[in-house]
């Protein structure tokens, strides 16, 4: 069966539709089947529709995503309560340990990520991974900093990523590799992203899963949950009306 490749973090400016169109067309040409463009927590639904249309024209599936950046666990819970039913992907950038722990154990969170430039605030350790493995959260790694950082900063980032990827593997937390591209020239083909994942010791198969199976599984699971037929995990409405 042919793999579906996904880039769940295409950070183009969604107000600039021309740029979005170029990026989406490029993603389609690179072989991606799914792309997610993050929206701010306050958004207009017409914008989502516009992006959906652009992606349809390019022959690629659009996934709606929101990036939360809460300062406290309460703020995170409020955000999840308000936005979970509106977006297919909820990603949380964890800037404090309390938020990281809450995000990892909450089943409404799909992706957890950490500040890329502040290495003291990367809280993906064994405790975090254990919580994430019991919930549904995946660990997201953006590739953009690997392109933009140089020298000691890039070495430190690679060292952190290597440790975190090993922890995720140990606790069976799915890893999702995304481009994080804000510019078209920072977009890479799925196989190139997988090759870059070898820099933090992900083996070939795990790296390919991180750009295909793992992100696609999140989207599939959430689409099912958001559908009107969903009742509970494993239970869904298969027929309605008088003939039931």
């Amino acid at each position, binding site marked *: 069966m042919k793999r579906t490749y996904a880039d769940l973090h295409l950070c183009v400016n969604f107000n600039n539709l021309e740029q979005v169109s170029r990026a989406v067309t490029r993603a389609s040409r690179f072989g991606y089947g799914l792309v997610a463009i993050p929206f701010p927590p306050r958004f207009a639904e017409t914008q989502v529709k516009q992006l959906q249309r652009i992606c349809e024209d390019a022959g690629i599936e659009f996934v709606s995503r929101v990036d939360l950046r809460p300062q406290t666990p309460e703020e995170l819970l409020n955000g999840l309560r308000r936005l979970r039913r509106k977006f297919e992907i909820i990603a949380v950038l964890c800037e404090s340990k309390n938020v990281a722990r809450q995000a990892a154990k909450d089943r409404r969170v799909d992706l957890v990520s950490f500040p890329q430039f502040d290495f003291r605030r990367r809280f993906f350790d064994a405790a975090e991974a254990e919580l994430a493995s019991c919930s549904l959260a995946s660990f997201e790694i953006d590739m953009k900093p690997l*392109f*933009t950082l140089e020298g000691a900063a890039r070495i430190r980032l690679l060292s952190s990523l290597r440790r975190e990827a090993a922890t995720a593997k140990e606790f069976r937390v799915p890893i999702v590799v995304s481009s994080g591209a804000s510019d078209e*020239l*920072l977009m890479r*083909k799925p196989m*190139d992203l997988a*090759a*870059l994942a070898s820099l933090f010791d992900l083996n070939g198969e795990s790296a390919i899963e991180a750009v295909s199976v793992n992100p696609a599984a999140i989207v599939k699971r959430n689409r099912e949950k958001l559908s009107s037929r969903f009742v509970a995990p494993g239970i869904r409405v298969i027929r309605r009306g008088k003939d039931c």
Partner: protein
Amino acid sequence: MKRLKRRYLALTIDSHETFGSTEFIDAIWAAVSKLYGEYGASRAGLSLIDYDGERKFAIIRTIHTTLEMVRTALASITKISNKPAAVHVLAVSGTLKALYHKVKV
């Protein structure tokens, strides 16, 4: 002595600028050395086989054991001669004939 297997990579350069072949191969060497050091770069056995600056198309050769390393280094290129650029792999093959067939040049 065991014969070294080679791999040929067809590349496309993504940039608004046009570069010379020396600028291009220098950028590849720089990326490989930056990520894997001079020792790693020396193992890659890199050479430029074909280059067309106008069409932004190139073919390079490497040793099959260092293919992933070269692929990673190519993906990490963001500038050529200090101008924004990206390099994408179009196809990989063990022979030039098969590679040209794959990219249909």
